[in-house]
């Protein structure tokens, strides 16, 4: 019996459980729902939960565990000399067995032991599937009968169902934690693996990035994995983008908050925010086909050599993308500065711009710095624009007209194409990802800390 079929059967039991539980509750009260402890539907849900939850838990566990157990049994039956092989070769053998078992074509001569193991595997899988079906459906039936027999007017069905609901709610909110844990552990694990192949100091302090892709399987493919050029590229591009985003974002926020008429503000603010809603791949395309060539032509006419993918192109486009992040957050913060401060300054004879520069901005400064830091972390983590517009050459350069590469670009380029999960060329992407994660997390926490610590309390 296949898994979907078992699922369908358990689901059917659940529905039947709901109907039967409700029916029995009504019948036991002689048709007077008032004499029941809970409303009839709760009795139905009670029986349905008992039918569904144990069976589904078993199914989930089984689906995860079955391949592992079968794998282990197959492995223990392989001939001695095969089991003694290195890990890579053993996994190759297991893949061959797997391919035979699923009926896929296998290249070359197949040894007898593999054929035997494949036959065994098919057999084991079939019996395991049957066992799973019988156990799961059996569990559903047992749960159903158990709960159904317990249904009587005194049973506190609602309390049980509500307790189960709370558990489900807690589990759902745990997913957020689980995601973070998953992110950290998956990357940490692969990063440690990477550091067992490449020493950490070579990664963190190396100034040369040359991973040297080699043919699959060949040994001794030592590339150089220096983080510094990538980090510099990331910082350089973020710097350029901030040079665009901070003045433009801040000035437009000031204008919208302090000068603009209400109607102008109602139109301009959402329009500017469109900039943040455009997918980054669109910006990347624009940088690649329009802005890059334009900068190159302008540079050529002025006598500069501007490469088609350059720090400048990527930085400017990214800066435009980030404008709304800076302007929206700053706008909120400037609006939060109490009017009395402005009135006081204006009453002393300051012009509006003097008030803004000397009173409003200093009061709003921590919040503005926080919003800029958040924008920086956004710029550092941005991928598509730099993948398409910054280039792939890892240059350690100060020239904004040259192309550089970033951490995110290298994560993408190391992980697209055929992957082999034990080469440093692939694993380095996880080390880069972890670096990126830690840096952006640090920036975010620091930004929130600044906002909290230096926030002026006016009330």
């Amino acid at each position, binding site marked *: 019996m296949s898994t979907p079929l078992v699922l369908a059967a358990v689901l059917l039991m659940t529905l039947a459980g709901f109907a039967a539980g409700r029916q029995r509750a009504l019948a036991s009260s002689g048709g007077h729902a008032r004499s029941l402890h809970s409303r009839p539907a709760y009795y139905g849900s009670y029986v349905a939960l008992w039918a569904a939850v144990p069976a589904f838990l078993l199914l989930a566990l089984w689906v995860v565990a079955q391949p592992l157990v079968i794998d282990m049994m197959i492995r223990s039956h392989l001939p001695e000399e095969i089991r003694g092989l290195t890990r890579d070769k053993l996994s190759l053998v297991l893949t061959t067995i797997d391919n035979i078992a699923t009926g896929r074509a296998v290249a070359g001569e197949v040894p007898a032991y593999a054929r035997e193991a494949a036959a065994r595997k098919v057999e084991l899988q079939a019996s395991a599937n049957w066992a799973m079906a019988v156990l799961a459906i059996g569990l559903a039936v047992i749960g159903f009968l158990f709960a159904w027999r317990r249904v009587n007017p005194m049973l506190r069905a609602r309390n049980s169902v*509500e307790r189960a609901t*709370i558990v*489900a*709610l*807690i589990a*759902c*909110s*745990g*997913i*957020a*934690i689980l*995601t*973070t844990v*998953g*992110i950290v552990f*998956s*990357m940490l694990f*692969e990063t440690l693996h990477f550091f067992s192949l490449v020493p950490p100091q070579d990664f963190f302090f190396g100034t040369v990035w040359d991973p040297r892709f080699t043919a699959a399987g060949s040994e001794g493919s030592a590339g150089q994995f220096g983080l510094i050029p990538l980090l510099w590229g990331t910082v350089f591009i973020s710097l350029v983008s901030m040079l665009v985003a901070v003045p*433009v*974002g*801040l*000035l*437009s926020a000031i*204008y*919208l908050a302090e*000068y603009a008429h209400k109607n102008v503000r109602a139109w301009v603010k959402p329009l500017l925010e469109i900039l943040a*809603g*455009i*997918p*980054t*791949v*669109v910006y*990347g*395309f*624009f940088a690649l*086909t*329009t802005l890059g060539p334009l900068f190159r032509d302008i540079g050529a006419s002025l006598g500069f050599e501007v490469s088609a993918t350059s720090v400048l192109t990527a930085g400017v486009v990214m800066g435009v993308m980030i404008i709304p992040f800076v302007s929206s957050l700053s706008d909120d913060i400037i609006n939060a500065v109490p009017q009395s401060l402005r009135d006081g300054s204006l009453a002393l004879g300051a*012009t509006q*711009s*003097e008030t803004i520069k000397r009173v409003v901005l200093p009061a709003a400064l921590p919040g503005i710095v926080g919003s800029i830091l958040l924008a920086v*972390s956004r710029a550092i*983590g941005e*991928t*598509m624009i730099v*993948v*398409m517009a910054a280039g792939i050459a890892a240059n350690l350069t100060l020239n904004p007209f040259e192309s550089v590469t970033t951490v*995110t670009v290298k*994560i*993408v380029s190391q*992980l*697209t194409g055929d992957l082999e*999960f034990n080469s440093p060329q692939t694993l380095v*992407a*996880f080390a880069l990802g972890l670096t*990126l*994660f830690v840096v*952006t*997390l640090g920036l*975010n*926490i620091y930004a929130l800390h600044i906002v909290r610590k230096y926030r002026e309390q006016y009330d």
Partner: protein
Amino acid sequence: MTDSTLRMSTADPLARTPRKLTFDSKRIRARYAAERRFRAYGVAAIVFGLAFLVWLFATLILQGYGALQQTRIKFDVTLDREILAPGGTVDDTALRTADYTAMVRTALRTTLGIGSDRVARREAYALMSNGADSELRRIVLADPTLIGKTVPVWISASADVDTFLKDQKQRQLAEDRRRLNDRQIAWIDRLTADGRIDRQFNTALFVNGASSDPEQAGMGVAIVGSLYMMLVVLLTALPVGVAAAVYLEEFAPRNRWTDLIEVNINNLAAVPSIVFGLLGLAIFLNFFGMPRSAPVVGGLVLSLMTLPVVIIATRASIKAVPPSIREAALGVGASKMQVIMHHVVPLAMPGVLTGTIIGMARALGETAPLLLIGMVAFVVAYPATPFDPATALPVQIYMWAGASERAFVERTSAAILILLAFLVVMNATAVILRRRFERRW
């Protein structure tokens, strides 16, 4: 110390001469000029942002609208009964495997009057799409009664012809800088004069799968893949997000554990999207062994990214439900769970849906994590289920942007316009939902 202050005070002219409180028109004028300058900077900043927006959209529209039309050439194709239905019976496999290329090519040669000159033949064939045979096959399969007749058939022109006809500047270029030579242009002119060239709506762009020929390439697979992903996001992020928000807002005790969850959710919203791609690769693909390029994996990764958005939106709208509602429900004897499930959550639903749609719109445009889980794939056939290989709209844009043919620039812009259209529709829905159903208490 005293020394330095003394020196400073003598250096500062303001300290020596007492400040005049009289009307200093020069200074006032300077201050007003500074005021005007400052305002002008603000206007300039806004104009810069808006101008960039206009520039971006204008570029995309000007580049992309051409791709909505595809040049087609009309040929009188003789559907040879000998080839299509050998032995007089219409056989399905014979119909599918027949040599349609030969038939279209014969028609092309007779139309242009080309003999056995091989160079001329090759140049003529270059006018026509490489997918001409499958277009003809589709026509014949749709209507087998045509077999044996000579029928006028519109066949896609090659991308070179299409680009040439859309961009008149190419005609002025020197021959060696064009993709088409003078003889081919003469043929095109002749076909145009005969009324055999026409531009028609480019259905292929919306329907076809991947192809290396621009005129045959379409976004059908990408659109379906993206729809599957959005479905997965909706089915996972919405219930889980609402449940988590309900727990955090209504049940969770204030303790370290719930604080941790809250900090977590806020941080997850700020994690770079590519990190989610690494998570998907390491957990979903490597650990759970899910298939590469499958929309279900992409959908799961995107729903993890959307989850914080849904949770934050749900918490905000649950908070907005007034306590009087809860108190009334509690007053008639509802349990806390009943109050929440029967009253609070339904009343908060418009806000929840608005937040979810906005989160999904962001997820729809997300590219980076999908690159890592193998969505950069050349998929020709539609995915039947979310477990089959597919690609996604933004990934398709990325792939086309990297293609070298000039015709793909046009198609990329068109694909972007379609993606933006989807985003506009989703955001508009969210706004309408908010306007119509949001209640002010």
